[in-house]
């Protein structure tokens, strides 16, 4: 009887602390290229997700009037962080999933003059940022690991 209560206690404790399912791999093999609609929303078809990029566009371009001209690029790394950028952006935004939202975890300055034609490649454990003939930049959630600025 004593053991029964002990097991019950352990199970209850595990439930309360949040069980971790490890390991987990979230990497997208290839980036998604999404066009912003007039409301500032983007739709990712393969992984069935949609979200607003309006705040980021406002911050990077200072203009939310002509949003539908923009195309944003997004990729997810193996740890589950989303990386988002677009042409003319200076930064790559690292996002995490939140309650009905995507939250900016960090912002990585990649090119002070702005990216011309960026693209992401999955290079575990990093994300590679390409921009025309610039030297490729390796980034992670923690910042730049090689190249950039």
């Amino acid at each position: 009887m004593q053991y029964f209560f002990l097991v019950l206690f352990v199970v209850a404790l595990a439930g309360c602390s949040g069980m971790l399912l490890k390991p987990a791999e979230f990497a997208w093999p290839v980036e998604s290229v999404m066009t912003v609609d007039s409301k500032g929303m983007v739709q990712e078809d393969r992984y069935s997700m949609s979200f607003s990029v309006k705040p980021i566009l406002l911050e990077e371009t200072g203009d939310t009037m002509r949003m539908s001209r923009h195309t944003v690029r997004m990729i997810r790394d193996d740890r589950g962080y989303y990386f988002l950028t677009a042409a003319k952006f200076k930064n790559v935004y690292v996002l995490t999933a939140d309650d009905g939202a995507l939250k900016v975890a960090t912002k990585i300055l990649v090119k002070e003059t702005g990216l011309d034609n960026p693209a992401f490649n999955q290079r575990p454990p990093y994300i590679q940022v390409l921009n025309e003939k610039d030297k490729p930049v390796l980034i992670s959630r923690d910042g730049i690991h090689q190249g950039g600025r």
Partner: protein
Amino acid sequence: MRTLVGLLVFVSFALAQEKSDYQVVQEFQVKYKAIQKATEAAATVQDCGSIAYSINELERENADYKKLLDKSLYPDGFEGKIQNARLQLRLTQDKLGVIEDQVNRIAELRAQVDLLSEQVSQLSGENSSLLKQIQKMSSDKSKATIDSLQGLISKLQAGIRQRDQLIFALVDSLFLQYDKDVASLKDVEKQSLVGKIEKGNVFTSIKKSIRDNVEFLDAASFTGKDVAEMAKQQRKFEVQWQGFGKKLAAIYATGKKGANEVAQIDTMLADWGRKTKGIFWHQLNLQFRDRGFAVKEFSSGNQFNDHIQEFIDGEITVAAKAKSDELYKRYVIFSDSVWRGDVKPGWLPLLVDRGELSDSQVQALDDKVDEWRKTVQPPQTIMYILIALVLGLIAWFAYKRMQKGKAAPPAASSATKS
């Protein structure tokens, strides 16, 4: 050196890495969709062959990205997509009643055409650079330059010859995909062939080849052997073009771009032929003149025949009046170094091949040279008489000695008695 190679490998690897994965996937999908569309529209065995080739190429080009494409092309993956494309093609072939082997053969020929096109353009680049070097060096007459110039000329000659062969092999591969007479091709087949001819830059390559050959003729002064080789090449090109030109003309309607190209090539080839002919006769004239034999200038096979005969007749007339060692030596130089040394082995077969001389004319010329020999050669009978005279003298001296030997003993015996 090792470090340099390592660095180059690293740089090329780094550059190869710079391609966007998204771009790789997009390019694959664009090509895949084009193949699907072509498969739906395929109407002939040639169409099926071209599609089979495109699928092979898509597979080959993307082999390095297999892992990426497997993950990205959900749910089929890379191999699944390729298999689907092949399956769709097979269904179309069945619908059209096309034989698989025929399709594979056409796909192979398509691959050959691509390879040959690549080789032709590579050789064209190399030949242009060699031609420039030759043009630059031709003005310098130093011994070292002449030696390396000769080396470059031989190299360029081989390059041009190889490129010419590749072009005709390419045209051949194009026509072989249609295993019937050009005249009996359907309009749709003709259209497809026209597309392939244009894609393979056939006309441009042939024109470039003729232009290079003509430029080569102007680039330097050549030895007789070089010119003979160049004339041979020109003739070969002409014969090959005659075959393909007719076929090409047959698939283009008069007045269309392709028909004009055929006519233009005919004209260019005729100009090249005239130029080669001019250099050919000039160089053949020099074979005699440079060695001190005043053969009247000729610029055709008949003239060559007449003037050589006339020249030898003149030599025979002089020799018939007064034989001398000088005349015999002159004959030996003509016969050994000019006629048998260069003209007969290097030039006469070409003259016959070009239809400038007949075999009987060649034989008559050879006989004429022999007639000259008989006239100037010291007569053999004198030699026999001399030999007989020498032998007679030897026999006479021997007889005399024997006679002396018989007379000697009686004189010795009388001396003993006293």
